[in-house]
């Protein structure tokens, strides 16, 4: 390795962000696009070469950059740690990011602040790379917060839109809840291990498996507590059930952003974190159970919501959430390589779907409601094809032992691992995952049929303008489509097959008796065929509902009544949070502000003191009457007082 590939892979995007961010308007739109795209492509190329060097030739790279904090036993440095897990993430992040950069050139061509957008994208990529290359919790947290900020900036890119403002604030606030957990987890780690270096933590984790820790006044198993706290952070970033409400709203951002951040990379940070910390989680089985259950619930809940939505991007957003659920329950049953496998394949096909959806929206002059689309497959055949590929990959269509789309390999691996784990939560996850697979297929084809087939429901004005997207938009979709088709087939050996152990090295850790991925080989045939069955039946049903008996969906919705409304309204999560937290907090804030701050603290604190001082000042200066005999009198009194003082003292 002659070139410092790791530095290029990580810092090229930062360089781009700095140049374009500072140059901004002076640089011009075209230059901004060229610089960021070129640097991203460099980074992507470097990561592919790194992948070859690290993952295939089995090296681990550690590069110390700068000492950061040295205080007592706390010793943190800026460093790059690149093993197979990181290398995979680098390829995913830089690959998708470079495609999104190029796509943005076309998609954002009418925007007024192109340099700002490109700079934000590059900045986001850099933070994401910092996150995945970290060798300690603090640097990871730095990247973690950095992507949060970049996400905030990008969701709010069209900051003149109130809905974008609200969505970005919501995303940031909900993530703060998760980050708080993450921070507590870091503190807990430092408390337990006296270090936040991954190597130190992993080395000592087995010894501390049974330690107790006092948290919130209770004696708790130390590792489980720490892991759960860290998992709260992961839940926030990866939009798991409970902290998921921000993700659908985040679709207010430009579509490339949704594709890059809210589908392919940032939201998978939680999965990456759990996998990275696998040596820790492995010794906290209860925490893993929680991870699995939360993941499974998210998976099914999100998929069910996806069935009912009409906004094309929201459907894909809920789909993303649901897929993240798959990844988490995979991690929960110790099938980390399966989780990362799905992370990778999902990155390809979900980015493809989002960018495809973007292309549709572009073609429909910004329309996102599927009820106002339909019948446009002849007008935009290339996009139509790409969407088909993405959906096939998402639904996990494929024949075991012959060929399948990317999602087929990873999703089946996850489901098989779940059932193979032999635990109750594994079985629960399998059942829910299976149901979700059915729903996934259903809403995917619901989307395709509603968007592309049938009679057009768009007004003729939009329809007249509908056109196939330019080459710069379609071209980046090709590599993604290739990934969506072949990634699973090609990478199977590394993630699920015999090459697994060699490929991963020490990057992932699984307690031998819980090696579910290995066990997945030997599950009953029936479990292997069920997902495919679910997928195909989901597609069929969707075809029946939306192409043949088009009045069924409405009938179905009305007959289900309250249940449908609950699902359509996303199980009233937003309303419940609004009622429970937002309003209560506002009331509390109002109370503290009006009664507490104004009424008490200000009145007796700053304002009171200031008022007293002013009165005192007025009185003190009122002594100055200007009459000379008053002054003389004051002097005489002064002397008299001093003399009396000494007389009285004796």
């Amino acid at each position, binding site marked *: 390795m002659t070139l410092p590939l790791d530095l290029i892979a990580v810092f090229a995007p930062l360089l781009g962000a700095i140049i374009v961010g500072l140059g901004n308007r002076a640089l011009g739109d075209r230059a901004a696009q060229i610089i960021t795209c070129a640097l991203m492509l460099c980074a992507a190329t470097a990561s592919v070469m790194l992948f070859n060097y690290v993952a295939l030739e089995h090296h681990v790279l550690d590069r110390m950059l700068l000492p950061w904090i040295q205080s007592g036993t706390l010793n943190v440095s800026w460093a790059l740690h690149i093993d197979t897990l990181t290398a995979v993430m680098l390829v995913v992040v830089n690959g998708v990011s470079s495609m999104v950069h190029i796509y943005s050139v076309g998609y954002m061509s009418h925007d007024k602040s192109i340099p700002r957008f490109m700079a934000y994208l590059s900045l986001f990529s850099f933070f994401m790379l910092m996150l995945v290359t970290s060798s300690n919790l603090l640097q990871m947290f730095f990247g973690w917060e950095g992507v949060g900020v970049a996400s905030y900036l990008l969701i709010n890119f069209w900051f003149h839109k109130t809905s974008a403002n609200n969505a970005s604030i919501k995303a940031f606030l909900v993530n703060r809840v998760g980050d708080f957990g993450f921070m507590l987890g870091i503190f807990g780690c430092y408390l337990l291990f006296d270090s936040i270096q991954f190597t130190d933590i992993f080395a000592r984790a087995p010894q501390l498996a049974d330690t107790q820790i006092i948290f919130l006044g209770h004696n708790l198993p130390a590792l489980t507590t720490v892991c759960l706290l860290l998992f709260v952070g992961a839940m926030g970033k990866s939009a798991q059930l409970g902290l998921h409400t921000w993700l659908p709203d985040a679709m207010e951002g430009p579509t490339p952003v949704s594709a890059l951040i809210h589908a392919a990379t940032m939201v998978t940070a939680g999965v990456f974190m759990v996998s990275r910390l696998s040596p820790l989680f492995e010794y906290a089985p209860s925490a893993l159970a929680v991870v699995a259950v939360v993941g499974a619930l998210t998976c099914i809940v999100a998929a069910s919501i996806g069935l009912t939505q009409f906004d094309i991007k929201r459907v894909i957003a809920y789909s993303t959430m649901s897929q993240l659920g798959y990844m988490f329950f995979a991690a929960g049953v110790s099938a980390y390589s399966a989780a990362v496998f799905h992370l990778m394949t999902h990155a390809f096909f979900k980015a493809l779907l989002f960018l495809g959806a973007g292309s549709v929206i572009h073609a429909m002059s910004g329309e996102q409601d599927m009820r106002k689309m339909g019948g446009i497959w002849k007008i935009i055949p290339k996009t139509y094809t790409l969407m088909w590929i993405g959906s096939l990959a998402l639904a996990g269509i494929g024949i075991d032992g012959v060929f399948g789309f990317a999602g087929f390999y990873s999703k089946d691996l996850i489901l098989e691992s779940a059932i193979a784990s032999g635990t109750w939560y594994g079985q629960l996850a399998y059942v829910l995952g299976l149901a979700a697979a059915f729903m996934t297929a259903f809403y995917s084809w619901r989307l395709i049929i509603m968007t592309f087939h049938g009679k057009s429901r768009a007004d003729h004005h939009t329809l007249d303008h509908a056109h196939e997207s330019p080459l710069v938009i379609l071209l980046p979709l090709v590599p993604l489509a290739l990934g969506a088709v072949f990634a699973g087939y090609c990478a199977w050996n590394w993630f699920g097959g015999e090459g697994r152990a060699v490929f991963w090295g020490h990057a992932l850790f699984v307690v031998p008796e819980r090696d579910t991925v290995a066990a997945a080989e030997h599950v009953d045939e029936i479990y292997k065929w069920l997902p495919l069955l679910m997928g195909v039946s989901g597609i069929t049903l969707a075809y029946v509902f939306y192409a043949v008996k088009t009045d069924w969906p409405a009938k179905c919705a009305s007959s289900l009544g309250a249940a449908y409304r609950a699902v359509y309204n996303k199980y009233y999560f937003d309303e419940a949070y609004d009622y429970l937290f937002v309003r209560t907090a506002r009331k509390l804030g109002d109370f503290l502000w009006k009664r507490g701050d104004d009424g008490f603290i200000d009145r007796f604190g700053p304002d009171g003191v200031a008022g007293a001082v002013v009165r005192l000042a007025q009185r003190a200066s009122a002594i100055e009457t200007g009459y000379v005999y008053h002054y003389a009198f004051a002097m*005489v009194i002064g002397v008299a007082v001093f003399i009396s003082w000494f007389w009285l003292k004796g």
Partner: protein
Amino acid sequence: MTEIVFYLFATILILSAGMVVASRNPVHAVLYLVLAFFNAAGLFLLIGAEFVAFILVIVYVGAVAVLFLFVVMMLDINFVDLRSGFSRYLPIGGAVGAVLLAQLVMLGLAWKTDPQLLSVVQAAGADAVDNTRAIGRLLYTDYFYAFQVSGLVLLVAMIGAICLTLRHRKDVRRQNVDQQLSREIADVITVVKVESGKGVQL
């Protein structure tokens, strides 16, 4: 005998000092002041300090008090107005004054001096020269410095007085000695022949 004279002078001194403050007519007040000066001079004479006594009479009575008298008579000051606040301030002013007075009286009663002081005083008296000469000697030897600086103080007082009050008014005719001395007959006198009944034309 000396005691009787002392108490006579002292009583009149205090009474007239009181009258300076109390009298309603400012001219009377100044006259009481003169009386007080005279009595004080008498007291000085009693202790043999005749130089101080005469200075007091010459400077204070002869110059200062007379100046006061002129000023008071030239300025039309309404003393009744000045006293208008008197009753208002009397209680508190009187109280503070009384306290201060009481303290000083107590001080007088409890007065002590440095035990070694007596010898110092006796030593000064032992030198039998008249006190004008003694003061002169001291002023030009031990107190030369203070004497000179007092001169500077007076100089500054003079500068101050001039600089605050001297005004060069344009409309006042002033004597120009130089011009007066240097003037010639030709400059000021013209001989004019006057024709009767025509008058003079200049």
